[in-house]
């Protein structure tokens, strides 16, 4: 029933991906009521999740090969054909 801070923060991380069970979340919330440090960790963790989401949306732009890169690949490949 009683969690260590290590376990509490792990559950907190899982819940950022909506993969913590209901029971885990109840235990986490009880822990947070009693532990200031984990309360702060939890609050900051949600902020970090927002950062990651924002970053994730920006990343999409770089997900293709540039024309120059393709030209270089083409050259290397042709040399081997």
């Amino acid at each position: 029933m009683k969690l260590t801070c290590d376990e509490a923060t792990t559950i907190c991380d899982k819940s950022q991906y909506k993969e913590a069970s209901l029971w885990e979340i109840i235990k986490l919330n009880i822990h947070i009521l009693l532990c200031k440090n984990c309360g702060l960790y939890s609050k900051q963790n949600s902020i970090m999740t927002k950062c990651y989401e924002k970053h994730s949306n920006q990343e999409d732009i770089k997900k293709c090969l540039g024309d120059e890169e393709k030209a270089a690949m083409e050259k290397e490949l042709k040399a081997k054909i």
Partner: protein
Amino acid sequence: MSQKKHTLDPDKWIKSHADYLFNYTISRVNNHEMAKDLVQETFFAGLKAMKNFQGKASERTWLISILKRKIIDYYRKINSAKGKAEVKMNFYADGEREGEWIEERVPTSWNSETEKSIENEELSNTLELCIGKLPEKYELVFRMKTIQQFETEEICKELDITSSNLWVIIHRARTQLRKCMEDNWFQN
């Protein structure tokens, strides 16, 4: 009527398949240069193996099957390699205080501008730097889970790790990232 036999035309590989293969790779490898190298290696391997092509599958399917093996090899290498850096632990690993916060690693309050600073365009750059400082395996698992948003099960299958393994890695990666962002972003 017999089925049309597929043929290979390496002269057109880059034009027809480079983008597709790169896209497939980047979502699994998460590193532009590495993904590019894997795609190029796939084409080279394809050239070498041309005589084994039986024409049953399409050219692209055939190339993807080569690429898949390249990616698995890459994962294996990461799995066995030691990380770039050691991740500092936040909790006592044993003794009377096992599982409790180590004093100097207790979270500190961020300034009140925190929420606003998330909207700053440069946040992504700092975050990218911090992610780059993670040990290689942590970086890969973190990116697949958080940035690429793969299912837990899929990551475990591709990387051959257990789900409790995955959560330990995610937890350590997130804790290190939080610390790195705390030092480089939230307190400025």
